[in-house]
């Protein structure tokens, strides 16, 4: 026997039957169909029982009092505190930048017009490079699925590719002495050019990046340290390229790593034409 009404019973209606969401004519049609198919009927009744049991098993969970930390008022208070922290960090960066630019300008006025150009070019360029590096660090350090574009397994390819795109021989310095292992790297847009980011992590999963890009400033600068929130960076410019080492680390912890990177790159620049890495 088939359903008496012309429209055949559908799988969706059988599910709706289990959920008791059918009414009227369609319910009658399904019931008629089930009367003729006792095995199917038995299955659906079993499904209905399981549905009921599952609800029963979980009922207590929904009846528990809501923990304080999940109250909306508390969650909003937490968010406000976070927001205030973020604004403070932004303010701190602005302050550092203004101090840097102001200091540069002051230095320039002291030293006369001839120095103006170098001062105004040099100071912002480390700042810009560092900004780019910190932004890139922030973006990709939290990335779980795709922290790097090219994996460290293809290190030779990675280094060659990034060197070609940046127009400078690069290396991924070996930082294993400092407990960091290369994860890989990626190419990023930076101003009118490109930047290379190498990402490392240590045993605890803490990440460190080395960011390299062309810097307008040209000549060399000393190491500059910048702390933004919990991230710390050492930046320097060397032979037309800006280098930034960034991590969530103390200054003292990061400095020897930055020095190692600096030495490693000084070395490449001198020996790169003949050296096969």
């Amino acid at each position, binding site marked *: 026997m088939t359903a008496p009404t012309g429209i055949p019973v559908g799988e969706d209606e059988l599910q*709706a039957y289990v959920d008791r969401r059918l009414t009227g004519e369609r319910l009658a049609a399904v019931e008629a169909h089930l009367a003729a198919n006792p095995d199917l009927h038995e299955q659906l009744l079993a499904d209905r029982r399981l549905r009921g049991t*599952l609800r029963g098993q979980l009922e207590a969970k929904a009846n528990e009092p809501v923990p304080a930390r999940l109250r909306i008022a508390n969650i909003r208070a937490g968010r406000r505190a976070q927001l205030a922290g973020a604004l403070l960090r932004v303010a701190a960066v602005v302050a550092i930048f203004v101090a840097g630019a102001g200091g540069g300008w002051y230095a320039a006025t002291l030293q006369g017009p001839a120095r103006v150009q170098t001062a105004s070019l040099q100071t912002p360029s480390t700042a810009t490079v560092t900004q780019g590096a910190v932004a890139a660090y922030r973006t990709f350090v939290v990335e779980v699925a795709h922290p790097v574009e090219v994996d460290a397994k293809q290190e030779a390819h990675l280094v060659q590719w990034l060197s070609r795109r940046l127009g400078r021989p690069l290396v991924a310095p070996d930082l294993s002495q400092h407990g960091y292992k290369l994860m890989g790297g990626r190419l990023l847009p930076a101003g009118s050019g490109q930047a290379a980011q190498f990402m490392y992590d240590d045993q605890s999963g803490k990440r460190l990046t080395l960011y390299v890009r062309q810097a307008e400033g040209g000549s060399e600068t000393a190491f500059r340290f910048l702390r933004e929130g919990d991230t710390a960076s050492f930046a320097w410019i060397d032979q037309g390229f800006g280098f930034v080492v960034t991590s969530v680390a103390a200054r003292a912890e990061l400095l020897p790593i930055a020095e190692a990177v600096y030495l490693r790159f000084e070395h490449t620049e001198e020996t790169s034409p003949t050296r096969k890495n």
Partner: protein
Amino acid sequence: MADPGALLEPLIPSLRRYAYALVRDHDAADDLVQDTLERALSRWLLRRDGGDLRAWLFTILRNLHINAYRRGRRQGTHVPFDLAPMPGTPATQDSALETRDVLAALDQLPEEQKSLLLLVGVEDLSYEAAARVLGLPLGTVMSRLSRARQKLRTVLEMGRATLLRRVK
């Protein structure tokens, strides 16, 4: 605009229940709910008016869960020591699985089937809302629901056999 708190608070118990059924750990479930609420508050203004608030929250929660699960798989699952089954110890009494531990049987289903059974069967979401949470067309949801129920039934019927296979 309605106060988000007044709209969200009444939904928290059912979010906690869904989260608990997914992760089967009370603290982890509340972490998941907290993340869900934080995200909902931060995107409150982006929420489409007239959209189903419950479906939206379940979607956020599920996506957070799936992301965390992927991360967990990369880092290896963290099992508290005293909860890890001791190898070699005779497993739970056969009867436990045979009788009525539907929740435990549910754990053997893929996440999508699990979510469907929970959202439709426990949280009483409409089929349309469940389809939106899972990002599937309605028709697909109906046939997957059918398959999920069949799978759950089979898992429970075959409970004993499955258990033996798993212990081996």
